[in-house]
């Protein structure tokens, strides 16, 4: 499936084409389940969340037409935001915090970089300009849905310090991306 094929499936889904929706589910549910599982860290909850994500996709597919995101990134954004909203509204047990610290570094290998477009490489190059623990905080929040409070605990700094860190890192990323 090329991005173009996924685009077609989303557009047809927005026109309530059930066959297209089934195919879209087949092609993309593993990735979106990976997102839900990574953030929620609970299989039953991730399964429930995945259903809710596809309900959103079914009802809001028309919004894709006005998005600049690639089709798969648009779908992942829906899943990520949904999973983060979900985990944020539940109380996090202390045990979960240790697991959250176990962040796999998603920096792509050289082959992936060679294949990827230059815009995709850019964010990784810009991440390199951040101090290592600050880049980890950005990735941690993005990939595991850690809140400021959880990040502060993991890095052993006060909440406000964590906020300042992350904001400065994001500003630095923006400047780097726009340079």
């Amino acid at each position, binding site marked *: 499936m090329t991005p173009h094929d996924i685009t077609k499936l989303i557009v047809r889904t927005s026109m309530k084409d059930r066959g297209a929706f089934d195919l879209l589910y087949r092609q993309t549910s593993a990735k979106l389940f990976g997102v839900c599982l990574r953030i929620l860290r609970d299989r039953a909850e991730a399964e429930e969340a995945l259903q809710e994500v596809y309900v959103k996709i079914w009802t809001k597919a028309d919004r894709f037409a006005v*998005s600049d*995101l690639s089709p798969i990134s648009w779908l992942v954004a829906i899943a990520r935001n949904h999973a983060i909203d979900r985990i944020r509204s539940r109380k996090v047990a202390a045990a979960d915090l240790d697991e959250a610290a176990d962040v796999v570094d998603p920096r792509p290998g050289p082959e992936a970089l060679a294949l990827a477009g230059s815009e*995709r490489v850019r964010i990784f190059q810009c991440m390199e300009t951040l101090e290592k623990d600050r880049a980890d905080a950005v990735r941690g929040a993005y990939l595991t849905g850690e809140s400021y409070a959880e990040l502060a605990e993991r890095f052993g700094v006060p909440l406000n310090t964590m906020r300042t860190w992350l904001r400065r890192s994001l500003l630095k990323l923006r400047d780097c991306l726009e340079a």
Partner: protein
Amino acid sequence: MTRSGEFGEDGGGDDILAAEYVVGALSVEERREVAARIERDPVFARLIERWEVNLSPIQDGFAPVEPPASVKRALDERLFAATAAAAAASSSRGGFWNSLAVWRSLAAAAVLAVAVLAARPYLVETPQPQASRLVASLAPRESDVHYFVVYDARTADIGLSHVTGERQGGRDFELWVIENGQSPASLGIIPAGSTVHLAVDQALREKIGQGAVFAISLEPQGGSPTGQPTGPVVAAGDLRDI
């Protein structure tokens, strides 16, 4: 936002708030506030969108995991047990596919003037207040050009998703809106790309309503020299409320 002073201090303001939302670190209350703002503030929504695009390569870090088949079954039950009734209701409303079929059967030459008239009887009975979002599927007409369009009346923005069909060398696609019986008005050249936007001038906004027709013609580079379509119509469809 409540902590605007703090945001100012960091020199980021709305843009940094957008970044914090996208990265995912905000609390549940903050996320709720931001989500509500995305719905009502299109300028802010664009900031969010840009951060989503900028950070999206990090998504490579999510490893795919196949969900159990029970999830899809539960999903279908949840979605389509209810939609059987909804589908019956919407087919009684008539319009869209019927009028598209009419469109396709028309001769290309007469298409613009005639199709609007032909589509009319199928349109929704009562005039409704201007909907804030309208969609149209611009289906191929003797071509393979297919676009999907969303018009947002609040922001006067037309978003176009390219589905299929390439422009021939050295020529442009131009988008037109046709109100009942009127001559086509140009909305501009469609930029190349899979998802593109056109801003709508004040004067043209009133022409874009439910039942108006969007059509794409093939024009010389830079657009029609006459202000009216000069090339063949390659795709067309009517606007409907969503």
